[in-house]
């Protein structure tokens, strides 16, 4: 068997990675393994994760049966860094943090497959985390304010408006 990296030397290292019960095998020669620097016992590194990932991202082209709503148009593009969705699915890397915003919900199937989840539940940065919670609260109050005004409940609306002002001041102060 020849090395799958260089295709020249015989493969002497047979590397198996098992993810969620799926076995992925890699066959490479010792020279390529050393060059990659990640196959030496004791080293970490994500040798297989990228090939695995590009397989995951292939659902764009391979999965004709996937719901059309999750299909990203080829023109989808991050306005911040210029990366297109199709570039992203080839490289398997985002170009900047705004890519997440521009690709939006279309990333859900990918996250579902990689993580089994789409929403973060862990640590939140103290500073911006507080800001995020404050912003959420203000948005909720504004929605309620609109409803009150529509229902002509002006007294309650005035209270809500004051509350929103206080919170907005607090946010500006942070």
């Amino acid at each position, binding site marked *: 068997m020849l090395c799958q990296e260089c295709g020249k030397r015989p493969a*002497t*290292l*047979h*590397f*198996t*990675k*098992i*993810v*969620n*019960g799926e*076995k992925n095998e890699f066959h490479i020669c*010792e020279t390529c393994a*050393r060059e*990659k*620097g*990640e*196959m*030496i*016992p*004791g*080293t*970490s*590194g*994500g040798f*297989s*994760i990228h090939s695995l*990932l590009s397989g995951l991202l292939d659902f764009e082209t391979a999965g004709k049966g996937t719901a059309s709503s999750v299909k990203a148009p080829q023109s989808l593009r991050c306005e*911040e*860094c210029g*990366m297109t969705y199709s570039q992203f699915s080839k*490289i*398997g*890397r*985002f*170009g*900047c*943090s705004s890519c*997440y*915003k521009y690709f939006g919900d279309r*990333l859900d199937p*990918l*996250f579902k497959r*990689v*993580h*089994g*989840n*789409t*929403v*973060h*539940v*862990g*640590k*939140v*940065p*103290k*500073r*911006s*985390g507080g800001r*995020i919670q404050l912003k*959420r609260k203000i948005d909720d109050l504004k929605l309620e304010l609109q409803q009150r005004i529509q229902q002509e409940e002006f007294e309650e609306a005035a209270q809500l408006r004051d509350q929103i002002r206080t919170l907005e001041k607090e946010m500006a102060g942070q």
Partner: protein
Amino acid sequence: MPNLRFTEKALSEWMLGTGSDSDIVISSRVRIARNLQHLPFPLLATRQQSEEVLNLLAKVPEDQDNKSLGTFYTIELDEIEPIDKKVLVEKHLISPSLANESQNGAVMISEDESISIMINEEDHLRIQCLYPGFQVREAWEKATSIDDLFEAEVDYAFDDKRGYLTSCPTNVGTGLRASVMMHLPALVMTQQINRILSAVSQVGLTVRGIYGEGSEAVGNLFQISNQITLGQSENEIIDNLHSVVLQIIEHEKNARTRLMNDSRLRITDRIKRSYGILSYAEVMDSKEAGQRLSDVRLGVDLGIVEGPSIPVMNELNVMTQPGFLQKKFGHDMNSEERDIYRARLIRETLAKA
């Protein structure tokens, strides 16, 4: 002038300690990936932008308020020789990608080498804590406290829904990768390893091992780490890894006991042969070294081999890597020469032990 103290010795100071369950768990590592707001990820960053990232992040540990962290030594990757990069990789102080592919890449290493903070790797910031033995919780506690110090001074790319935003979709959410390096010779010898590892992979963990021609992993070393970073809290991730590793430790211990009960002579013979060969051989390739060092390590754990300690065995694992050999003997060498120097280094180290 770049600081080269880290590439001269094979053994990091942290490795002198052993940590709990160090007969089976070699080391525990936690890595947290973070990025700065308003700057493209390193993949797309211009030289000027990656320099900005470096300047913003490198000053954080030097801040007066953060002196509690201790002293850090900053190494810019552009300023050191390829051989020193290789040694830093072999000591797990930096990743291969920081060594070879980064622009304005840098690492800040703590005095005892247990903390390394990488800048401009795949993400702007990667905080790594590497502890001996089974200390994955302790490593997480340390890493998250360092994360807090950075967060107090820089604006992270964080999204309400997706969490900490990373360049690779496999890291998004917590940005946390926790891993444990295990030495599992008895599970390999008793052919239970595949069953156990595939069970491990059912619960959201990843296993990495290195395989030779046969079915035995070279060095019998396996790295178990979390696969999922989104939708689980950091505590869930650490607890899950912790409890699975505890179970593997139990299985390995049972397998060792059974081996010693059923085939004491065969095991003792195998270990002492390996010890003899390592003590006297003139040529030793990396694969054979991996296997024989594993045998001797098991022998030390079982009390069959006296002399070398676990830290010495850890040291040999690093010393016998190509980069370190070259650094130690001071010149480039082809693989045959390397096998000769490797054999010599092992002989000399074991003779002193």
